[in-house]
């Protein structure tokens, strides 16, 4: 299982109702169904990934989350999850608002553009970072809204969100001392557990 999924799994209570935005091939929901007996749906637009969801028996709804979640009622899910999709959205701030409306709590993961390797790429080479982790060139990348941890923290602050938990780590999700000390420089992945301020 993906390491970030095992962290997310720990943050989701058993038997809860989960909505997974940009659920991909349904791996997380499949895991949560088996380990935590959760119910819920994944939203996805990629036909191949939807097919994989059907094959593994994950309930998946074809829906573009960039167009909002109008068809979902407020507070209808215990947790709304979105892994590694924030940076690919046209309106990440609006989707975040929608997540917080539909879910009582939200879990968001995203890559940190403030990581030292990105800074090195841009600062020394003067080019947009391309790595194993971010393999796209600037012109064909689906990732159109990169941010750093600090940027995301600012957004949470301006939206007056409550950060319940946060984990900033490297890709292997090992306990990483530099990432703990200087997350915006050494952390590669962020996992945020947030809720609307009540």
């Amino acid at each position, binding site marked *: 299982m993906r390491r970030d999924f095992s962290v997310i799994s720990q943050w989701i209570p058993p038997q809860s109702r989960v909505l997974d935005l940009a659920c991909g091939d349904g791996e997380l929901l499949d895991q949560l169904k088996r380990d935590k007996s959760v119910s819920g*749906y994944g939203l996805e637009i990629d*036909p191949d990934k939807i097919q994989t969801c*059907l094959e593994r028996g994950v*309930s998946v709804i*074809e*829906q573009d989350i960039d167009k909002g979640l109008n*068809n*979902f009622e407020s507070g209808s899910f215990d947790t709304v999850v979105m892994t590694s999709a924030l940076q690919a959205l046209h309106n990440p701030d609006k989707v975040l608002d929608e997540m917080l409306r539909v879910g009582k709590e939200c879990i968001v993961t995203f890559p940190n553009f403030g990581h030292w390797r990105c800074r090195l790429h841009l600062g020394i080479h003067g080019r947009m970072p391309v790595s194993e982790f971010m393999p796209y060139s600037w012109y064909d990348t689906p990732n159109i809204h990169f941010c750093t941890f600090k940027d995301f923290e600012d957004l949470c602050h301006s939206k007056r969100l409550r950060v319940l938990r946060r984990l900033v780590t490297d890709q292997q999700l090992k306990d990483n001392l530099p990432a703990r000390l200087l997350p915006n420089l050494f952390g590669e992945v962020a996992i945020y557990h947030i809720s609307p301020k009540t």
Partner: protein
Amino acid sequence: MPDHSQAPSEPVVTRSFPDSSVGLVTPETLHFDQPLALSCGRMLEQFDLVIETYGELNKSASNAVLICHALSGDHHAAGYHSEDDRKPGWWDSAIGPGKAIDTNQFYVVSLNNLGGCRGSTGPVSINPETGKPWGPDFPVVTVEDWVESHALLADRLGITQWAAIVGGSLGGMQVLEWTIRFPDRVRHAAVIASAPKLSAQNIAFNEVARQAIMSDPQFLEGRYLESETLPASGLGLARMVGHITYLSDDAMKAKFDRDRKVTDFQFDYGAEFQVESYLRYQGESFTKRFDANTYLLMTRALDYYDPASRHNHNLVEALANAKARFLVISFTTDWRFSPERSEEIVNALHTAGKDVSYLKVDAPQGHDAFLMDIPRYTNALSAWMNRVATESKEYTV
């Protein structure tokens, strides 16, 4: 009788059907003596249902799949009726050994609905009280009535719970009604290219079709069979209108564009354009296999269906007791039953907390897409039916 005794013995030539075909099938007529109370308030004292079945029912009767047909469909969903049958059943692309609805796994039941014209009791059947065809006296039956009759059929076949019920268009409405009316009798429900109720535009198309039939001088207020005639031009016209709405603009362009049968304009009103000739052919051939009263009845059943109307016009409430796991599929260019209409069903289902998966398949064929072998559609239905098979096995244990 000719004497064949001197004829040399000829080897029996049997046509070989593909391995993925259910092959030769024979319809079966089941007679029901119990009266059926209909939505209109009338009683059908006795009736026949014609069915076809494919595959084997397992010992625990847990692998049964019901196929619900659309407006002009019938019980002949798969396979061939004779060695020299040109065309297989209407959904042969999806039903057969190794196909999406795999007859190696499932016992598939397909029937002709009440009011139909292919053998089940309907306007062309003889009314036992008069000894004449029912014609216009046959009651206007509804989706709800059909589902009630399906349940009697299930009882007869020893099926307490369907592994899945599958249907497209008007068939999808029957699937939906099954999950509402008999929540404990259906484990999985596939609602394809359907809607929770018709829109005004949709009813309007049905009305044009009905007017075409009823204004045909040969209609004779529905008693054309008694006079041994047919409102063929009216029924053909109704079918032509229907056909246009089942295709997308793009599909028609791809199929006909402005192609003509003759190079020069004839300056008259014959079928010069290919599309005209196609529609005329479709209309005409339809009149040979379909009954006008049945067409009226089927379109009316479509118009009337609106399960939410029984629940404060709230579809979420209507679906509150449903227990099935749903699959909903729509097609991008289907404007007769558009994706938005399928999404109404999906939204009501997830709001009601029901298990649902939804696909909007990119397909140029319009409403007709649901009858076609479109790879993404077929693969999705196949994967979903595989889960149904797996869960049915768990259910048996």
